[in-house]
């Protein structure tokens, strides 16, 4: 199966996502320049980390206007699996594919360190191989990862089981100490109502090999391979190609 890694001019984790998909997982992966207008038949779309357009304005605020984003919207609307990592998550928020916004970390500083997150939902394409309650050790690297949404939005997210990842301690408890950035309700990652679009601040692509300190992030990529190969999530681009 094929991963598309969207490259904005300021993406800097594009190589890492590509490497995880192609070299660690042994799948096909292709870079898609943000000015392109086709996802080239990809089965999975990754919006990688970085600073899409420098992010001097709000993070991801300009990226949503890139030509490729119309295709990403279409792909998502038709049920294709989309993963936004860090800046990619921020872009998903700006593009309206996921609700809420990011504030600066409560430390007011950029933070790069390993954190623990608990997998709360396993019916998304990126957690299908996980066990509910599984705690993963994955690094964060961001200055604006303090997730915020209005209380009624957070309540809706909880009701719809859209909170996929939460910052917790090793015992899986969402304490304030375990919250690295001040995110509301310790939210580390979300999915869409249709559950096929997932965004998270931690970097699973940086935790795919033990040599790098953790291989806990690999399960997100393994999940989507499993989900797509089992036909759990549609492959809209290819379906369209066949229809033509």
């Amino acid at each position, binding site marked *: 199966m094929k991963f598309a890694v969207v490259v904005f001019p300021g993406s800097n984790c594009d190589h890492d996502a590509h*490497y995880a998909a192609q070299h660690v997982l042994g799948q096909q992966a292709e870079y898609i320049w943000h000015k392109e207008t086709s996802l080239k038949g990809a089965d999975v779309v990754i919006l990688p980390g970085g600073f899409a357009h420098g*992010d001097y304005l709000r993070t991801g605020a300009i990226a949503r206007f890139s030509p490729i984003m119309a295709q990403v919207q279409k792909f998502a609307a038709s049920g294709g699996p989309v993963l936004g990592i860090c800046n990619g998550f921020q872009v998903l928020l700006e593009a309206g594919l996921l609700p809420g916004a990011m504030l600066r970390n409560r430390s007011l*500083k950029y933070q*790069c360190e390993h954190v623990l997150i608990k997998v709360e939902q396993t019916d998304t394409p990126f957690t299908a191989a996980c066990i509910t309650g599984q705690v993963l050790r994955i690094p964060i*690297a961001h200055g604006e990862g303090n997730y915020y949404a209005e209380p009624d939005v957070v309540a809706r997210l909880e009701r719809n089981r859209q909170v996929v990842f939460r910052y917790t301690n090793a015992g899986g408890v969402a304490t304030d100490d375990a919250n690295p950035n001040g995110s509301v309700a310790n939210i580390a990652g979300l999915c869409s109502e249709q559950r096929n679009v997932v965004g998270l601040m931690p970097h699973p*692509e940086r935790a795919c090999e033990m*040599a790098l300190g953790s291989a806990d992030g690999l399960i997100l990529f393994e999940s989507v391979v499993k989900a797509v190969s089992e036909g759990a999530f549609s492959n809209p681009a290819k379906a369209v190609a066949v229809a033509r």
Partner: protein
Amino acid sequence: MNISGDVLERHGLTPEEYQRIVDALKREPTLTELGIFSVMWSEHCSYKSSRVHLKTLPTTGPRVLQGPGENAGAVDIGDGLAAVFKIESHNHPSFIEPYQGAATGVGGIIRDIFTMGARPIALLNSLRFGPLDDPLVRRTFAGVVAGIAGYGNSIGIPTVGGEIAFDETYSGNPLVNVFCLGIAEHGEIIKGVASGAGNPVYYVGAKTGRDGIHGATMASAEFDDKSAEKRPAVQVGDPFMEKLLLEACLEVMKSDALVGIQDMGAAGLTCSTCEMGSRGAAGVDIDVSLVPQRETGMTPYEIMLSESQERMLMVVKRGREAEVERIFEKWDLHAVRVGEVTTDGKLRVRNRGDVVAEIPNRSLTDDAPLYRRPMAEPAYIKEAQQLSFDSLGKPPAAGDAFWRLLASPTVASKRWAYRQYDHMVRTNTLVLPGLGAGVVRVKGTSRALAMSVDCNGRFVYLDPYRGAQLAVAEAARNVACAGALPIGATNCLNFGNPEKPEIMWQFGRAVEGMGAACRALDIPITGGNVSLYNETDGRAVLPTPVLGVVGVIDDARTVVRRGFTSQGDFVVLLGETYDELGGSEYLKVVHGVIRGVPPELDVNREAALHRVLVEGASVGVIRSAHDCAEGGFAITLAECCIGTGFGVQVDVPAVASVGTKTFSDMTTLFSESASRVVVSVAPAAEVRLLELAARHSVPIRRIGVVRGTRIQLTIDGRSVIDESLADVEQTWNTAIERYFEPARAIA
């Protein structure tokens, strides 16, 4: 002469240098020409005081692909690949405006690396500040760290290591040295050369503004109370622009349409045009009215001297222009043709066609003034080398001294800083920062590279020759501890005002020591940077010749880390502890003095030690390795436990102190003797390690075992330190944070 003495002084030029300009031009210079000469002949660009000394350094070797003189050096790392690396200072701008000063320092060194055709994959930094109880120092420290983070993180190059030390002399003159390493294929290395008459000269990147005019001249003068007024000479960085430039330039370089390229760093357009022309024995003819400008009404003088960031100058093969322009368009950058290469060897600057400057390139570069400045041994040396233990009073209990050293910001964890750096992007980082040398793997090969930047300014202050030798030894030792063979180095020489014979003596002796140690350890220096005039109100910083060493590990899986890995492993000391408290962290922290003679260095023994470490790692005998540096053996032992969950039980023999018996324990625990490493080894592998050490004649002694959760140290069976690991970690981890977030750290 038609230029007044006042104008000359503002340009930092002497009357003799002015006469030299007139001789070179065979006429009086215009103001634009004077400006061009002043920046190119500044200390920062011309190395006029240091060049005679730098020439003595070893710069060649079988692995050296590019020595000094280019934008960066390059060494062969196998697999047809080269490591391209360099270190550079941004001390003066970082004092005036910490965030932007440090950020643009990072931007500058990254450009130096990708200019060579290499993709940058790692950053390190070597920083010096005054004591953290001074609020102004805290502001500078916080600003510098945030600036390094802001630039490096955005562009996506991991900051994988470095060092930070604190001393009063840096209060008004912090040191910000930034190191960058990139990877290129041998055949892809590109040089900063202009050649081929008629080839077009292109300007790419950010527009030119009035920022940074005379930055190089500023970096060539001492600070005083008027320094804050120099803020407009500090540039403002735009890492996003640099990211675009990096990607676009690397793409253009793949096309072979390029003749040469150079970034516009210090002295901006002036430096890039005349240096590229000089290297290619060619001339460069440009029209400044074509240069993209962000302000209106800029004069040729201002355009030539601006140090606006994120700009590059390229010479493109004639006929390939459209191809190159297309690549820059893709990245939303504009490549603008501003001139062409000529055959007359001159830098010719026009403004709307009218010639405003015409100078032989060589007179600005190779023929710049060269000074053999007078040197005199400073009066303080003989006095400071005297260490009278009687005058120090009674030493504290060993435990007390241990706690005070753990909490010393120079010794303690630098997590507060490196947590702000993205140290994992590009997924190559095998050893996280704060744990010795930075280690990154080289994707597509089996190899990894280890790198370390080091210098103990106190040792250099007390004995510049030996201190510089020790800096080389320490940096190389750190790399060897990771299991890497040291293969190349870059240096950043931070000193005071070279016009003072005492400073020049420090400089000369340090360069001699550095050269001697590099020759003995077979580590060529492939380039670097000199930063002089590091003085505020006439007081110089500790002489700080920082050395950055790069080493290669053939099999990345054999990388060795510093922490203990297994309960029950034997703890072994390679090397020997001598009565060498001179210049130690202990004397500074506990007794408040920088005195005595620095530890001796036997370069042959040091080289043998590196062989044991590299071979021991490659065959898997060594499980962990950590060298003894600031704080001596006791602190090293604690650092081997921190973060691992393992405690240690160790017994060492007493080291006699010549001073007085009462200092024997302090000497045993905190002496900073060189060439020592604490390693751990599985009991079953101990014999092999003993044999290995014996074969290389390196002293070796089993001193204890990895056990429990306490740090327990005895001297000849007598308990001197017995502390819980958790308490040690708490103190060491939070010592720096406490200065910034007192409430949180206590909780």
